[in-house]
């Protein structure tokens, strides 16, 4: 065991000693998380909101609050609103149904409907609408309470009762904004940087681990692996050590992004054991693929090419560049051939729906299966090449 750990440790040290890794491993992923976060939900453009519904106190209250929040408001019909949202002419559509208007007039909590678009700032716009709607009802509640207090005071002069009434009339006035578009509901539980961070964790963990294949080739070519085998070490231990080395690099990269994005951007990684468990099996797949490349490619240039090309293509296919939810249906089966898509789904479950280890068992299972396949292939090839090299 000690030799296995020594080999793995040496692999990690070599990885960290390579200065050219510093930018790509430590800086670049965070830059991407920041850039994606900014486009996903920055406060850059003002929200464009299309409002539907007949003239009512609720509608004007909501519009007033939206305009106060710098939103660009258009009042329009139902069909037009849906078209605008679909084509990007509006970020969010708000429906003010008649029952809601009546409930509002009656001092009860009205329920609004919202349709969000797929543009990057739709989430921010939706948040503006929620806040505006809440503000509108709170404001009317306050007015009503004051009115009630004044009336009571005027009628029988009983201040205590008036205040009591005021208290009761404020409380129930709460607006519900029901999000009726599936995508917005799906992404709704996410913070600004969360989606970008989980995508980048998958992309970089895989990419960095694959790039480590070049170091394996170098060690084989330079005869270091041969020399290791000349020591009191079995070939199984050597292979375990080299495989564990790849895994250590994967986990190192993954854990770094998780931690740094949490500290710098406040990314919510949800249930930590689940997130780390997912990262572990995903890292095992990456380690296996890296071993295979490290044996199959016979020079470092080819290995690096395969690693970068493969790492980027798989990430794109697996939803790490464009969210899986935006994929056309025809592409989805292909996406789920990549480990990334399963990782993406796992993180979606954890980050958006508060999933735990139990909830992501299917994803863990599939990834574990992929890991076994790739690690077995990598070990077999490495063992064969060690025997041949000797």
């Amino acid at each position: 065991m000690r030799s296995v750990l020594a080999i793995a440790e040496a692999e990690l040290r070599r990885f960290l000693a390579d200065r050219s890794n510093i930018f790509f491993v430590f800086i670049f992923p965070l830059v991407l998380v920041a850039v994606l976060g900014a486009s996903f939900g920055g406060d850059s453009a003002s929200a464009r909101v299309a409002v539907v519904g007949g003239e009512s106190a609720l509608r004007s209250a909501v519009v007033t609050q939206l305009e106060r929040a710098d939103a660009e408001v258009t009042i329009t019909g139902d069909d037009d609103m849906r078209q605008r949202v679909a084509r990007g002419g509006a970020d969010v559509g708000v429906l003010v149904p008649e029952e809601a208007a009546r409930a509002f007039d009656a001092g009860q909590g009205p329920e609004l409907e919202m349709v969000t678009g797929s543009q990057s700032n739709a989430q921010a716009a939706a948040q503006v609408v929620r806040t505006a709607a809440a503000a509108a009802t709170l404001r009317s509640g306050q007015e009503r309470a004051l009115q009630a207090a004044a009336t009571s005071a005027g009628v029988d002069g009983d201040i205590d009762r008036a205040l009591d009434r005021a208290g009761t009339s404020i409380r129930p006035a709460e607006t519900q904004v029901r999000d009726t578009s599936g995508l917005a509901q799906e992404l709704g539980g996410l913070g600004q940087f969360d989606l970008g961070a989980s995508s980048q964790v998958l992309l970089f963990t895989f990419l960095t681990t694959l790039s480590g294949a070049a170091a394996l080739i170098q060690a084989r070519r330079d005869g270091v692996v041969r020399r290791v085998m000349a020591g009191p070490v079995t070939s199984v231990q050597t292979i375990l050590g080299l495989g564990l080395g790849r895994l250590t690099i994967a986990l190192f990269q993954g854990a770094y992004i998780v931690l740094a994005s949490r500290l710098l951007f406040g990314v919510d990684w949800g249930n930590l054991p689940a997130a780390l468990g997912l990262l572990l099996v995903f890292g095992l797949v990456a380690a296996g693929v890296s071993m295979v490349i490290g044996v199959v490619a016979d020079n470092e240039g080819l290995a690096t090419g395969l690693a970068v090309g493969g790492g980027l293509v798989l990430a794109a296919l697996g939803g790490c560049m464009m969210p899986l939810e935006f994929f056309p249906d025809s592409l989805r089966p292909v996406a789920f051939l990549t480990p990334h898509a399963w990782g993406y789904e796992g993180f979606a479950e954890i980050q958006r729906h508060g999933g735990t280890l139990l909830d992501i068992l299917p994803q863990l299972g599939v990834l574990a299966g992929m890991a076994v396949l790739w690690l077995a292939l990598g070990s077999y090839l490495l063992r064969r090449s060690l025997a041949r090299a000797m």
Partner: protein
Amino acid sequence: MPTTVGTEAQNADARGGSATGSVEPVLVAEGLVRSFGSLRAVDGVSLRILPGETFGLLGPNGAGKTTVISMIAGLLQPDEGTVTVAGVPMGRSSVEAKGHIGLVPQDLAIYPELSARDNLQFFGKLQGMHGRPLRDRVAEVLDLVGLGDRAKEQSKKFSGGMKRRLNIGIGLLHQPDLLILDEPTVGVDPQSRNAILESVEALSGEGMAVLYTTHYMEEAERLCDRILILDSGQAQAEGTRDELIELTGDADRVHLSGSGDLAAAEGAVAGIPAVASVHRDPHALDLTVRGAPTAIALIVNAATGAGMKLSNVEIRRPDLESVFLHLTGKALRD
């Protein structure tokens, strides 16, 4: 068949100490054979090394030295033959036997990204060393190979000679019973080369057995207690330097360089009784001659008489080069 020479006592010891029963050989290799395709790279090589002995494997490039060593170190499966190290049989998975060996490969086998110290630490851990004893031993070896003041630098920044010395340091870190050095001075500047030779001398002084391969006969002469001459995968002779030189019949070497009819000159000098062998190059004849100082006049006359124009004549006392020539009819540095 290899010519084996040596004192009776020594040979008895080498066969398992049956005569005195005192000294167990560190290494016993018997009848090693290994082919690559149709090439018989090693063809029946046997050797024994006693504790504290420096054993030389001398042969030109391609003779099969590295292949022999790879089989001894358990990196290559012999087609035939056995290897026993410190009494333990060697195989590809024989961890115990491998623990007795320190291998210094012909090509640098170090991690270039790691410092000299980290390289040593890593290979020390593989040998089962750890903690303070490992740290102390690493510091000791760094001083021994003269890298104490550069210990923290990435080894890829080292000169060729420094890398070689680190390469050797790794091999002797765990104080193996048998240190195997495969052509450690190839491509090294003269200063580093001398440092390497000195440290090998120091090691054998400490009682470590050393198996040293080289194609430089001066190194074999300087370092080795016993030498096996290898050519085309076959052992040509084995013994101490003096024993090997006796094989030439204590002949001197005469080197005639010049132009003209060298073929006729070759025939003419070969007819002289004192001349034991003749080897012809395009511009020179290499002879082994018994009693060269007295025969030289005859030889020169015969060569010039046959039409050779001499530009230079050299007489050399016999050395391993002449042994090799005598045994194989070839120069060592072909």
